[in-house]
């Protein structure tokens, strides 16, 4: 598989189509390996002697197999999509794409910290290069690189401390090294774009080419999630860690959602949605840790853990789909803001429009879709926080729960905005650039199918993952098709039956109605007796202004009216903090450079001499 990715990357120098195709093959192989490990108990290692008694190599076990399977779904879609989409960019994009996927596979399969770090660096560097592929994205790409390297440094410190305590880099066994847990967790949290480390994410993800955005937003942040799962696997559940994770996660989910609700950029909104979803995943992991600390006899911690996995799966599928569909529309129409792509269903096509609708609805927790199952499970977990013995835990988790649910509400709002103003909505009559779209459309269709199918067979998936205790049968639902959120039963849901019932009660009658509507009169929308002119359409900004106004303390909303120009400006306060730091660093570097590079020959000579002496002292 790794070889295939490498070959794919090398072939990229010759032919991009072939390169993407090899990437696709490798991803399919990854999916095969992942599924085999997850469901059929396949395991394997390939180790090489490195130095002393340290070995490096790759290993598949149940945990990383599962994540490999999840990530490979996104890889498949992205490579399939790129077969067409890559035409817009240079050949080297295929190389970068293959290599960054290779990096992620290395991370997932890493047996030890060194392989992990190598994979991490490969992923980071080639993701950086992918972002740079988009014209004028240097600043954002650099921001991405800076934050990624920060997490690399933290990882190095973490793994070193692991080595010191265990004298091995192996990512297996147990450890309770606090430094390791602290630093690696922080590194992964940065990678996931958790508040307050989210500012790079929205910039980089929105600026990158769309296939790269999908890759960055879904699998790359999934690496952070996997990292956290691995840390838990190594260090066990820690109560304090759990509390912090719940706090950070729920704030992140809330902040991501309310920022998404007022985003105007076509790809900034999905990027903030990533922040929100990763926040949910982190909060659920923290919740699992809290629950474990409370009682191992309760099924709550396992349920929360499972919820985190399902949230990851749901996020990666829907987010890849969202970025691919939006990206296709953005590229074909050449527009950046939500307002300007109105009517994708007419201008670009039905399939990308449906892709935006399905993924958006999945993020809004719409029944029949995977997001619904995952977010139901999340709410069920939160509801069970009453079980916790300590009042402190209860307060923290239920407050976190409130934030998460509010976040879900705002996420629905933002997704309605995105769906309503881009996929649906009245067409501008804009002409889309012609492109080959067979592969793009098939990638989108595959993801849509997966979102629906995973929801329909979510219960069977639990069996496969080994959580059969949450699968029961009751209320006329046969055994094996009902999800229970706890044992003894707390809440139940059956997505399968919901789908069947909805189909029978709603969809079938609706289709029959559509077939038999002979008397329907089709007219344009009623607008006071006149057709709407271009400047009379309700804008997406106007749609979200009410929120911007009500929460003006949060957004620092500023209404500006200057003569005949008027606009509303909002800020992400975290951007301000970073800008302040950046400004400070700039000032300091400027001062130092003025101090150091003052153009005096003697000064340089003395500087060189000092450095020379210092190097001697250090290495001597």
């Amino acid at each position: 598989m790794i070889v295939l990715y490498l070959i794919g990357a090398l072939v990229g120098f010759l032919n991009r189509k072939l390169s993407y195709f090899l990437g696709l093959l490798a991803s399919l192989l990854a999916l095969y390996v992942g599924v085999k490990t997850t469901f059929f108990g396949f395991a394997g290692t390939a180790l090489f002697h490195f130095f002393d008694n340290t070995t490096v190599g790759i290993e598949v076990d149940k945990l990383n197999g599962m994540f490999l399977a999840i990530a490979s779904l996104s890889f498949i879609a992205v490579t399939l999509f790129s077969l067409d989409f890559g035409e817009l960019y240079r050949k080297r994009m295929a190389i970068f794409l293959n290599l960054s996927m290779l990096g992620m596979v290395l991370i997932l399969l890493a047996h030890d910290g060194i392989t992990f770090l190598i994979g991490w660096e490969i992923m980071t560097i080639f993701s950086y290069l992918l972002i740079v592929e988009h014209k004028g994205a240097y600043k954002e790409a650099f921001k991405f690189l800076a934050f990624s390297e920060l997490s690399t440094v933290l990882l190095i410190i973490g793994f070193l401390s692991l080595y010191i305590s265990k004298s091995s880099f192996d990512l297996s066994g147990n450890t309770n090294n606090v430094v390791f847990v602290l630093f690696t967790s922080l590194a992964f949290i940065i990678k996931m774009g958790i508040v307050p480390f989210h500012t790079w994410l929205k910039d980089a993800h929105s600026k990158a080419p769309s296939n790269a955005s999908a890759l960055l937003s879904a699998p790359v942040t999934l690496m952070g999630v996997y990292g956290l799962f691995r840390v838990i696997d190594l260090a066990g559940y820690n109560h304090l860690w759990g509390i912090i994770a719940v706090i950070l996660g729920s704030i992140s989910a809330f902040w991501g959602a309310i920022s998404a609700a007022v985003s105007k950029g076509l790809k900034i909104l999905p990027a903030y949605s990533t922040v929100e979803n990763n926040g949910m995943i982190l909060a659920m992991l923290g919740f699992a840790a809290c629950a474990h600390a409370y009682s191992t006899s309760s099924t709550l911690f396992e349920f929360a853990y499972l919820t985190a996995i399902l949230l990851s799966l749901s996020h990666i599928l829907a987010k890849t789909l969202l970025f691919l569909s939006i990206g296709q529309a953005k590229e074909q129409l050449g527009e950046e803001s939500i307002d300007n792509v109105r009517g994708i269903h007419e201008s670009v096509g039905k399939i990308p429009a449906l892709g935006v609708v399905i993924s958006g609805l999945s993020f809004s927790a719409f029944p029949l879709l995977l997001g619904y199952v995952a977010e139901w499970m999340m709410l069920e977990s939160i509801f069970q926080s009453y079980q916790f013995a300590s009042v402190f835990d209860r307060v923290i988790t239920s407050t976190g729960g409130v934030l998460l649910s509010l976040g879900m509400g705002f996420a629905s709002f933002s997704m309605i905005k995105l769906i309503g103003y881009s996929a649906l909505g009245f067409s501008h009559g804009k002409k889309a650039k012609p492109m080959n779209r067979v592969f793009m459309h098939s990638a989108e269709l595959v993801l849509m199918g997966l979102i629906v199918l995973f929801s329909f067979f979510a219960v069977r998936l639990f069996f496969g993952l080994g959580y059969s205790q949450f699968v029961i049968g009751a209320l006329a639902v046969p055994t094996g098709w009902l999800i229970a959120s706890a044992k003894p039963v707390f809440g139940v849901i059956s997505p399968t039956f919901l789908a069947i019932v909805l189909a029978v009660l709603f969809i079938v009658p609706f289709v029959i109605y559509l077939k038999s509507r002979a008397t329907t009169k089709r007219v344009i929308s009623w607008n006071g007796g006149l057709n709407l002119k271009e400047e009379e359409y309700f804008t997406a900004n106007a749609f979200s202004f009410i929120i911007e106004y009500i929460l003006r303390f949060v957004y620092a909303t500023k209404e500006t009216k200057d003569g005949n120009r008027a606009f509303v400006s909002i800020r992400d306060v975290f951007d301000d903090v970073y800008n302040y730091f950046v400004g400070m660093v700039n000032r300091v570097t400027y001062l130092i450079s003025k101090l150091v590079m003052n153009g005096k020959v003697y000064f340089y000579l003395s500087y060189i001499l000092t450095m020379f002496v210092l190097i001697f002292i250090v290495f001597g």
Partner: protein
Amino acid sequence: MKPWVFYGLSNRLTERFRKKDDKIKGLSPAFRNSLHIFPIDVGNDNGLNFEMEALQSSQYNIHRFGIFFTDSPRHADILLILGRCTEKMVSPLKETINQLPSPYGIVVVEGGQPFGIKPKELALSNVLAYYERHLSADEVLSVLLNIMEVK
């Protein structure tokens, strides 16, 4: 606060209404119990608009007959064209008629105006009644009740 319930019961504002019989084309028996109307001003002198205001007064209490004003032509059974048309209102009028769901009827009240385009000249379909003179609120109500009665 006033005990409005008792006040309302003791001060009956609604009057008995006796409609004048008139030969008017019917619309459909479906509207025997309820009729939704949408008035459109195409350039009248505001007198007819004020009659519509008066038609909603307590004396007539049109809701007891099942007559309601709608906020959109899409929900209307009857379009009341009030006045003679100005040039710019011709296309909004046609669009409004286009938005009416079938079956629909049109009642034209010119209001005795000495200027403007006569709606007659616009070749409108489904015109149930056409009045060149001004109609007062009770006369409009009479027309509507006659439309509802026709089988």
